């Protein structure tokens, strides 16, 4: 018997019991729909992270003093005194490096008039706006002259500016006090929002790194160096930087690095991993409903086989072979699961559209998820349809014909 004939017989049988067929399909529809929507949600979150990472600055490489694997008395990241301003200058000569900004960090109370705010003081270099692709909205960033002479000038993050001077106010030229030292405000950065690591990038004050070293912290070393590469291929550049710093720090073969070089991709990958785990979890939960749908198919097929025992007996008597009967019931189960799967894919799209509109959750359904859901639905049909079909095929025609 040809497969087309089998398909026609199966469709006729399903058509005879429309309500039951639709209800059985519902299990598959919900299962596949849930999987599609959940995968879409996870993928949407991932895309958002990727966009955030891109906006953080292209081709960026971070070098921090110290290392997680550094022995002896361990200090926090960037807290070791192994990086020197000369290291940053040396990196300008590494091939593939475009911009270099040495960094020295501090924290402190910032006071303007009767307002005050505790924030991060980030000492950096004039290349910083180019590395991060981030320019001031009021005033300007500081100059090489400011850096060389460790001027007490500050460029405020928009949150700091809003808090101290009120929103939509240009505070350029005002004097603020940082740790009781007067600083001249020379600019305010444009608003950036959250970083890929979930940090608020606008809650910050920028000053020359030399100012942080000499006027605020009284330290000889710097905490980090931010570099941008000429191409998005940052890995070889990062490796070249590592080599250069190892030579400068006189580290021999077996010594561990006393600094850590990380590319933007490294930093993003952590969050991407987290999101992937979440997506897998959501999809797995949705997969459970797919499993329940499959069990529903099996249940209905078993009922159907019992109910149609006499029909099976008759088919066997007039010359159907066991495998004809097996195939007929298997195809019925597959038809249910495939149709259910198709409708479920539609439902998945509708669900993610609704989530995007009402909850503002970004969703993005990858095309291979559709194929996978469809394949999974078919596999469910085969898996859960096989047992009832085999039960039907193994019936004894005499017993089956006698069945009341």
């Amino acid at each position: 018997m040809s497969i087309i004939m089998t398909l026609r017989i199966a469709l006729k049988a399903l058509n005879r019991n429309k309500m039951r067929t639709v209800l059985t399909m519902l299990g598959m529809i919900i299962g596949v729909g849930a999987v599609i929507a959940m995968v879409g949600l996870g993928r949407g979150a991932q895309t958002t992270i990727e966009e955030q990472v891109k906006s953080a600055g292209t081709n960026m490489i971070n070098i921090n003093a110290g290392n997680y694997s550094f022995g002896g008395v361990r200090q926090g990241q960037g807290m070791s005194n192994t990086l020197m301003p000369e290291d940053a200058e040396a990196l300008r000569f590494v091939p593939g490096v475009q911009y270099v900004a040495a960094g020295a960090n501090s924290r402190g109370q910032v006071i303007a008039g009767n307002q005050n705010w505790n924030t991060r003081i980030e000492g950096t270099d004039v290349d910083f706006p180019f590395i991060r692709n981030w320019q001031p909205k009021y005033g300007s960033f500081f100059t090489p002259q400011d850096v060389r002479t460790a001027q007490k000038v500050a460029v405020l993050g928009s949150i700091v500016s809003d808090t101290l001077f009120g929103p939509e106010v240009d505070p350029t030229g005002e004097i603020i006090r940082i740790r009781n030292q007067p600083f001249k405000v020379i600019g305010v950065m444009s608003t950036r929002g959250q970083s890929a690591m979930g940090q608020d990038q606008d809650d910050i004050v920028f000053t020359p790194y030399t100012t942080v070293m000499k006027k605020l912290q009284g330290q000889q070393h710097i905490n980090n160096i931010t570099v941008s590469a000429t191409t998005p291929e940052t890995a070889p550049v990062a490796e070249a930087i590592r080599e250069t710093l190892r030579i400068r720090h006189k580290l021999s073969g077996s010594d561990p690095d006393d600094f850590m070089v990380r590319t933007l991709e490294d930093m993003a990958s952590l969050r991407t991993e987290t999101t992937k785990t979440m997506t897998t979890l959501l999809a797995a939960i949705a997969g459970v409903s797919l499993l329940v749908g499959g069990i529903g198919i099996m249940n209905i097929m078993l009922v159907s086989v019992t109910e149609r025992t006499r029909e099976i007996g008759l088919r066997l008597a007039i010359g159907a072979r066991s495998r004809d009967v097996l195939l007929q019931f298997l195809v019925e189960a597959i038809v249910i699961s495939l149709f259910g799967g198709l409708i479920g894919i539609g439902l998945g799209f509708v669900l993610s559209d609704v989530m995007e509109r009402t909850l503002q959750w970004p969703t993005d359904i990858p095309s291979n998820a559709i194929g996978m859901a469809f394949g999974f639905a078919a596999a469910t049909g085969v898996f859960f349809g096989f047992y009832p079909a085999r039960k039907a095929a193994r019936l004894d025609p005499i017993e089956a014909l006698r069945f009341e």
Partner: protein
Amino acid sequence: MPVISVRNLVKTYTVGEVVVRALRGCDLDVEAGEFVAVTGPSGSGKSTLMHILGCLDRPTSGQYFLDGKDVSRMSKDELAAVRNRQIGFVFQGFNLLSRTSALDNVELPLLYNGGSKLKAAERHKRAMDALTIVGLADRFHHHPNQLSGGQQQRVAIARSLINAPSIILADEPTGNLDTRTSIEVMGIFQRLNKERGITIILITHEADIAEYGTRLVRFRDGRIQADQKILRRRDAEEELAALPPPEDDEAVMEAHPPAAEHGGAA
């Protein structure tokens, strides 16, 4: 050469701990064109014989030659092919597929007979021919629940004819029918037997129905008790002509089609 030749057929099976000896060695030859009525009380073994003759079951021992071929040791799939091509079945309960037209019901055996190679139009034509033979040319698209019991049984007979079998096995075909429709159905069997030379094995426990055959085989306790020629054979056509015209029954049937309880499988 006989169509059916059975030698020392034994069938035993166990129900729980009880061993049932349904057939205890029986020999039977049926020549082509015979109309054999098999009778006997319940449990006499006539149903078991019919299952073996119909290739639905295999004997415990003994041999069964159908058209000269030993079918008693064939594989399940080979038996299915024999059932499909050489044997036509008619059951007491009609066993038609519900919510399926008469035409589709009759076509069913073709689907399992390389029927996929036959074009749909050809299958339809053969089904129509078979339905015409049993006098249902005007009921092609009726569903079983729109047909009377007699009509349903005639659809079942048409189905048994579709693959041009050499024998038809009828298991209590009139068991669910009233007297008049019983005679009509027996008339069809007699006609098929006479005009087409189809060998008919009729299983019945009604003595008067058995008299439509040419030969009577009586079973008792798993053995053939009597095997004789029927001397005063009944002729369904003559009896029908003698009966008052069927205006009442048939007319009522057509105006108010009986509900589904009139039988049909699944």
